[in-house]
């Protein structure tokens, strides 16, 4: 019985929630970890990371915690690896393995044509539990440009009894760090010019799968003095990193003479700087495509502009560098800018100058707001950034330094507007012909840019059908037009078609199916919305209004709305307006409540008397 109880306690951890309800939760854990990591930075800017782990794996659910994956490429090398699995009950060694026993594979990327990113891996298996798994690994890096971060709790459902991280570095090289949610001890000393800092965390809480990653303890590290290949730099400030990046790309922006002449000819007679930028950006979009090739230092240093011209392709660095060189040729200075891209990516740690970036865009300074160019897109207008890079801190690099700034967020109404005008003719059977024109401004236009640029005709028709506010649209003709106003994306969509059963026949009435589209989370994604929908509906003569038409008027802080329905002769006119501003932080439940409120308010049934249908229910 005692053994059973011990086992039970072993597998779960009590957790008292902070709220007053004092709900006792038990988060199971499948392994127990004790780990020491030692990072040694050498005077020649290389480093070694040694990780020693002892895992007690209680159940088969925890065996994945013993999986090892060690990254390597031209700059990083796996030096050694040892693993031993022991049956705890018998003390017998079950399995031993070394580096030569590890599997080897490439990181598969559908977007990268060629890179040198590979990994060694080892999967531990066991038939009986508990087992003890001891793992020791050593990796060597030729550069301290990027230092590993320390996450004391590597897995969900893992109990960490002790985890320590020691970094040793020549004091002269310097080191910066940022502690996040660390609550343990830190010790520091210096001897013979080598500084040593050790962080130790003990008895850490077990994390469930839905653990909030913002609460995760971790340590971020960055060098002060660093080198990548032969390029030495200092990361004391953002400016230092920026000037190093400029140095890395120095001399790689030389345009071939004939290409330079060709693009300058495109600008003959053009004086307006924005117009020049637009012409060159459009030229880049039409003639160059994104191809990612990342090898060694090439992951950070751009291809030369001449090579990008030669192949008509490049990655973000190569295309941005070429665009910068083209603008330079036109007498327009611009800045190569580093960004951490991703549609829902967290912002960078602004107080830890370090390499936190995975993408490059171009900033063109103007006397007012800078113009931003996403050089890997062949869809966006010059000066507009998609959700991949907007509204976040970026590092603008210049030869003499650089600075951190933010990209635009496009949250005001002019960037988030949708308008539509529809003419509908309903026949006596309730089917309808519809002719619609829609205009999308700013963020909402980007989806239309994608649909126009990337989908074939069947897919485009399907898009129109699926996104029709009344289901069953059979599209006859349609047209997408892109009519951007400078950097504001503007898309116009016109279609005509047939709507099967636009009205529903009930026993006594005709009910128009809801035709004012509902709002969903996508409408709120950009913090504001202006939507105006107008319908002009020609009804069969026999239909007469059944009661008064609904009327809606909303006037609240941050939300105004209007629904007007009038009838003249056989023409029904419907106009809906919604204008919305959304607080910066909107919880999911608040968002749902807001959407329900708006949709419910405008979900009004329009009824007509039906003198032609006489069917009665079975009685």
């Amino acid at each position, binding site marked *: 019985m005692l053994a059973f109880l011990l086992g039970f306690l072993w597998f779960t951890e009590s957790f008292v929630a902070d709220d007053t309800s004092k709900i006792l939760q038990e988060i199971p854990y499948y392994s127990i970890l004790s780990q020491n990591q030692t990072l040694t930075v050498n005077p020649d800017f290389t480093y070694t990371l040694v990780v020693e782990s002892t895992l007690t794996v209680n159940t088969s659910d925890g065996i994945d915690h013993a999986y090892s994956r060690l990254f390597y490429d031209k700059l990083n090398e796996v030096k050694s690896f040892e693993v031993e699995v022991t049956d705890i009950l018998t003390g017998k060694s079950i399995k031993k393995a070394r580096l030569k026993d590890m599997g080897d594979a490439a990181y598969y990327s559908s977007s990268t044509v060629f890179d040198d990113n590979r990994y060694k891996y080892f999967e531990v298996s066991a038939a009986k539990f508990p087992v003890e798994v001891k793992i020791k690994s050593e990796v060597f890096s030729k550069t301290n440009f990027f230092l590993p971060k320390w996450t004391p709790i590597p897995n969900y459902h893992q109990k960490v009894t002790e985890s320590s991280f020691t970094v040793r570095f020549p004091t002269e090289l310097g080191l910066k760090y940022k502690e996040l949610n660390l609550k343990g001890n830190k010790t520091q000393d210096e001897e013979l010019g080598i500084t040593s800092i050790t962080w130790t965390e003990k008895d850490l809480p077990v994390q469930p799968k*839905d653990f909030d990653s913002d609460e995760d303890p971790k340590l971020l590290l960055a060098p002060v003095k660093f080198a990548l290949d032969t390029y030495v730099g200092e990361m004391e400030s953002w400016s230092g990193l920026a000037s190093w990046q400029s140095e890395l790309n120095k001399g790689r922006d030389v345009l071939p003479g004939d290409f330079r002449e060709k693009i300058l000819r495109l600008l003959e007679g053009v004086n307006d700087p924005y117009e020049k930028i637009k012409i060159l950006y459009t030229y880049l979009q039409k003639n160059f495509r994104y191809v990612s090739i990342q090898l060694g230092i090439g992951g950070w240093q751009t291809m030369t502009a001449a090579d990008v011209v030669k192949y008509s392709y490049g990655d973000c660095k190569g295309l941005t560098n070429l665009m910068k060189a083209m603008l330079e040729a036109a007498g327009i200075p611009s800045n190569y800018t580093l960004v951490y891209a991703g549609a829902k990516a967290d912002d960078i740690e602004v107080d830890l100058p370090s390499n936190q970036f995975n993408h490059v865009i171009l900033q063109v300074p103007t006397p007012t707001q800078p113009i931003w160019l996403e050089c890997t897109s062949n869809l966006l207008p010059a000066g507009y950034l998609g959700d991949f890079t907007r509204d976040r801190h970026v590092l603008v690099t210049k030869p003499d330094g650089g600075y951190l700034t933010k990209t635009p967020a496009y949250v005001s109404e002019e960037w988030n507007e949708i308008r539509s005008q529809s003419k509908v003719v309903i026949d006596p059977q309730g089917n309808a012909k519809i002719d619609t024109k829609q205009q999308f401004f700013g963020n909402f236009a980007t989806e239309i840019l994608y649909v126009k640029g990337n989908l074939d*005709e069947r897919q485009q028709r399907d898009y129109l059908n699926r996104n029709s506010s009344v289901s069953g649209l059979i599209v006859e003709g349609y047209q997408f037009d892109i009519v951007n106003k400078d950097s504001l994306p503007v898309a116009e969509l016109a279609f005509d078609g047939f709507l*099967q059963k636009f009205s529903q026949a009930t*026993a006594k009435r005709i009910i128009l199916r809801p035709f004012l589209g*509902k709002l969903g989370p996508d409408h709120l994604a950009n913090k504001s919305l202006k939507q105006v929908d107008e319908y002009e509906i020609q009804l069969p003569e026999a239909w007469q209004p059944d009661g008064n038409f609904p009327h809606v008027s909303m006037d609240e802080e941050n939300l105004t709305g209007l629904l007007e329905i009038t009838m003249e002769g056989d023409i029904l006119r419907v106009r809906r307006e919604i204008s919305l501003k959304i607080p910066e932080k909107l919880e999911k439940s608040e968002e749902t409540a807001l*959407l329900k409120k708006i949709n*419910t308010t405008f979900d009004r049934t329009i009824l007509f008397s039906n003198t032609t249908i006489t069917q009665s229910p079975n009685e």
Partner: protein
Amino acid sequence: MNRALLIVIAVLLPLLSSGQSVKMGEISQEEMDLKEVPYETGAGAVYLASFGDSRIFNGSLETQYFHRVKILTEAGKEHADIRIRYFAGTNNVENLTGMKAQITNLEGGKPVVTKLDKSNFFDIDLGDGLKELRISFPNAQVGSILEYSYKKGDKNIEFLDGWTFQKSVPVMYSEYQIKIPDHLEYKTISQGANLYSRAERKSDYGYFSWILRDLYGLKEEPFMRNYRDYVDRVEFQLSRYRSGSGSGSGYTAGPEWTDFLNNWEKLGDELIEYYTTKGFYRTNPIEREMLSLDLGGGTQLEKAKTAYYYIRDNFVNEGSDWIYTDQTLPQLLKSKKGAPGELILAYMGILRSLGIECNPVLIGSKGYGRSEIVPFPFLSQFDEILLIANLDGQTQFLDLSDPMAPFGYVDLDKHVKGGLLLEKNSSRLIPIDIKHASNKLVYSSINLDPETGELLIDNTIRNFFYEGLDYVHRVKNLENDNKPMEDLFKESYEAFEIRNVKVTDQLEEKNMVSVQFQSVLKDAGEQDLLVFNPLQISEFAKNPFTQDFRVFPVDFEYSFKETYTANINLPEGYELDDYPTNETITIPGAPIAFTFLTENLGEVVKITAKLEVRSPLIQPESYGDLKFFMESVASKLASPVILKKIEKSL
């Protein structure tokens, strides 16, 4: 090869290649001028020509590939990056040689050809013997014509990969030819509606060729999970070879024919032998394993159930479902962890040790690449196992693929038309007909709460068989993610609110999973006209078929019925004002039908709707009718009922 044959080939080849130049650089004016694919407008790129030519030399297959691609739109430029995956293994089982590529652009109206050099080819080692050749074409523009060719060597000549005619973008011309040496004989396995109906075929003097034109690009379509089973392709299985007397060194030419394929009986016996060497036909270890289990009494069905749950609940189900096993039976019993195929075979061992007649059945599962079983005996058409048992005189198919499935459930991907029954000396193809009534019954009781003014719809969904199993998985996923059961229903951001979701899993006892929940309309009592949809949860209230046309059949996977019954209890002070009209519809051939009925029973109004899928596979020719039908269904399922407050006279 003798001189006469060479002449025949010389005459034959131009004939085979007629209609389309498949030589690099020989681009026709028509191809130069092509701006879009007439039958697939807006396609980003098109394969103008694809050609494959296979020969067998010295016990290896060599296939010369040639492709000509045209970029038609900006987005189509992504097709200027080519990836060719091959399995090199540890001894170059497959290898690529002779890569050539060039791009042709029109400059000033004249074609300018750029030949690719080594810097444009990348050979990637993906690990586990897999490699990938990647080609990035420089100067790819809208209008560019890309051509590439290579030779692939393959040391395996028992089963030849052959040719797949479609690509992700349209293919206007696809031709494959193969020369079979006269000392080898292959069975051709061809598949796909286009190949059957409109392929241009030729066969002369050991040359066989197939041409297909104007093929759609492969794109996903709703209600078709396994479109790979419908793609047009040809493959070849070695059936016999002629060998010299006493050579014994493989498939060398000689006077005597030797059967390679044998027959179903021998193929079955080979597999049985394989499983026997792995220990799966031995009962001793199994009997020891089952000592703790009481399997003494009861019917065969009861014993089979007990053993099923023992394996399901005491072994970890991990790994790919496959007809070959990594472990032996003793290893499996020790590790308590195995792939579905291993667990199935261990289960067979238990049943056999109990004297129950039980045998494996090999099948080609859905998505493995074949919609029909190939009626001659080769093994590579099978990928998964199930069991057939005789329990108390009843035939029962058994499976252990799904750790959450109760006894008797067979993974839906294994619901195929037939399989190979493995039985010593009498293995044979058998039909597979797994009967189940995976229906859905939805019952709703609708009341207006006079105190709160809320319109309460109390719903019960009874999901039977595989519909129920689907719910079991969804519930488990929510539990794993610590999500509320309300998430079983997609948030619609509309007026109704979902409350009090309760799931009752009676799948093992009654083949049923019940889901009870309330949908609530707040402040309903304040309205003079109460307009609402009484059927709240049908997934067919929105037509899933929105595409203009269909390339693959619509596959509902199995026949089923969905029946909705809503009883509206007329609240005091209200009268039924309006309701949806009755309707009964179907499409030609009646593979699917729908009825909708409203009955006024006085204080109760009863709405009944039934959707019945009788033939789950509906061919593309019927798509237009099906689309129109489902639109009518959607419209009806979303129709409102109107209750009206009775005006009180003063």
